[in-house]
């Protein structure tokens, strides 16, 4: 009797667990399918965007009238963005730099720059025409190989990423990695979609670089323009850090050396209590300071903090003008920029943060100032009246001044700045001071934390 009961109970348990297992298995299969479908979609989209990109490049090459040229060039930039987005969704073993991505970004950037130029009435040089053509030539094999990969996926059951290396391979008896083999010039058929793409990457690396390196090549200054000359030792840097901390309200501090930093504004980083501070090796100036102490409930108003910020700037030895502020709740962030002969120089910026509990400086960032500050001479310009005439009719100007603004590709432009309203929206318009050509348009929004420039 007992035995029968046991057998019955065990059978029931077995059946229930089998049912549960089957259900889980089915669910896992469903999820796998969803993921698989998404991956597939990304790859097919990638291929079709590459294909459209290739077509637009061909058409862009032959187009001769400016409107057609603008049409195809702007399509090149939007198609390359779309292809890049798809590419980023294809499964990978690890994230790293990819030449396909770089190729797409550069193509997009280049055609965007050219679109803007032609739209402003400019023309392409013979060299740029050639670069566009080179791009097209290089894209064709990429396009073909991706299409091949899709066919092979359907016919050879390619997986998305390479399986983990076997014990034999780990011990060094296995063959070389496929991408490495491709870099050597040998072509072994890829075992997975990802290694197929890696092969493409490797073959792209072998091609000669473009004459156009992209706006991004110059997105940071090759060397800081504004740092004082001479270098300081670690001991000298400690004294500089100590002086700075004294001005901030930490008297008789002993900053503790934390690390050396490399790069453009490299130097020595220091810690004191919860504060963190960077002193540059060249010039020995404080480039970054942040007090990470906990900020108590606020006692100061925004106005008090603004007055405090201006006083701190003077005590640190800066003569800059306050241009904007942003409310972070427990502290307020202020941007100050340089002004010379009445011209606002926006790239030369210093940022401060003032805590609202006691008005202490909790943040300081002079990296932009030291990166971009240089002796500037202002070229001849059209008059303010002439510039105003270039504005769109019905644009109501509320503020106007001369300014230097940063342009992509790490360039400065000397401009007239107009703040004003048009059809219920507020804008900042920048006209080139020499020619009056429209250089930049920014839209101003009022957000709960302050003005936002888009």
């Amino acid at each position, binding site marked *: 009797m007992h035995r029968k009961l046991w057998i019955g109970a065990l059978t029931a348990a077995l059946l229930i667990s089998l049912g549960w297992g089957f259900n889980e298995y089915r669910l896992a299969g469903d999820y796998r399918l969803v993921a698989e479908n998404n991956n597939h979609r990304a790859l097919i989209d990638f291929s079709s965007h590459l294909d459209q990109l290739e077509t637009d490049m061909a058409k862009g090459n032959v187009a001769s009238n400016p409107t057609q040229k603008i049409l195809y060039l702007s399509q090149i930039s939007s198609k390359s963005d779309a292809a890049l987005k798809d590419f*980023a969704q294809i499964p990978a073993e690890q994230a790293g730099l990819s030449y396909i991505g770089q190729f797409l*970004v550069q193509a997009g950037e280049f055609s965007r720059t050219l679109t803007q130029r032609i739209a402003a009435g400019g023309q392409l040089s013979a060299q740029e025409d050639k670069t566009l053509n080179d791009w097209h030539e290089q894209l064709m094999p990429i396009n073909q190989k991706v299409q091949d990969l899709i066919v092979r996926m359907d016919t050879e059951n390619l997986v998305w990423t390479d399986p983990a290396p076997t014990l034999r391979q780990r011990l060094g008896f296995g063959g070389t990695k496929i991408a490495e083999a491709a870099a050597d010039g040998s072509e072994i058929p890829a075992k997975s979609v990802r290694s197929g793409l890696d092969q493409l990457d490797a073959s792209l690396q072998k091609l000669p670089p473009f004459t156009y390196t992209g706006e991004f090549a110059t997105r940071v200054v090759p060397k800081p323009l504004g740092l004082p000359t001479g270098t300081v030792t670690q001991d000298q840097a400690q004294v500089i850090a100590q002086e700075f901390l004294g001005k901030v309200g930490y008297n008789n501090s002993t900053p503790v050396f934390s690390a050396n930093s490399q790069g453009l504004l490299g130097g020595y980083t220091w810690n004191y209590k919860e504060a963190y501070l960077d002193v540059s090796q060249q010039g020995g100036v404080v480039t970054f300071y*942040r007090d990470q102490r906990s900020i108590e409930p*606020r006692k100061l108003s925004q106005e008090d903090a603004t007055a405090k910020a201006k006083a701190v700037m003077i005590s640190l030895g800066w003569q800059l003008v306050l241009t904007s502020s942003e409310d972070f709740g427990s502290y307020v962030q202020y941007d100050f920029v340089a002004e010379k002969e009445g011209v606002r120089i926006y790239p030369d910026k210093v940022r401060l943060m003032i805590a609202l509990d006691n008005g202490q400086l909790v943040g300081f960032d002079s990296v932009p100032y030291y990166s971009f500050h240089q002796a500037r001479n202002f070229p001849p310009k059209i008059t303010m009246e002439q510039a105003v005439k270039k504005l769109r009719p019905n644009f109501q100007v509320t503020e106007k001044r001369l300014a230097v603004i940063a342009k992509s590709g790490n360039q400065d432009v000397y401009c007239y700045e107009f703040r004003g309203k048009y059809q*219920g*929206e*507020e804008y900042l318009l920048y006209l080139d001071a020499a020619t009056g050509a429209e250089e930049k348009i920014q839209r101003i929004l*009022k957000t*709960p934390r302050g003005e936002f420039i888009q």
Partner: protein
Amino acid sequence: MRLRMRHWGVLTIGLILSMAISGIAYGALGDRLLSKGSKGPEVTELQQKLAQLGYAIGTADGSFGTKTESAIQRFQKARGLTVDGLAGTQTINELKRLSGQSTNSTGKAVGTKSVETNLLARCVNAEARGEPYVGQVAVAAVILNRISDPAFPKTIADIVYQPQAFSSVADGQINLPPSADALRAAQEAVSGSDPSKGAVFFFNPAKTKNKYIWSRPQIIKIGNHIFTK
């Protein structure tokens, strides 16, 4: 029979009346002090506003529990208010002001403009919890630096969800509610701070054996993370 019908009628009218009255009694957000244990539509509104600003509360269920209390505390800490976990007039006014939409010059609402910052904050929280604040800003800055680097996708979501880019996406930590520090770090990086000095990768040397990442030129070490080109 007729008597019973009337009973039902009275009961129905009574029910409708009591529901209407309870609706009025709850009133609008800010009419009364909300604290742990409070319930009602105004709590739901409070929870929605907190979530919109990135202070995760789980499901907005209209009941003020531990998660809501901790979200209120994080909000109060970040905004420099007295941290008591109670939603009083000052806290609610601050919350209402901040969760308002951005407007153009005629006052037309144009959305909140904070969706991407909240995702960035989640990523910072998942990748750099327990790191010094500067290190958290640096992690946010790395993600933003990738946008302008040719080798990476062009939006915050594309970068964060790129396969294998962040381990916290693969193991689901990205969905944890971001701390107040992570939120602030994300906002600060969006407004232009970059303590990483232009880095596009970061890693924890104690946890990473990946050869590629070790081969990148190192820029700076902040907390437990090394930031590289």
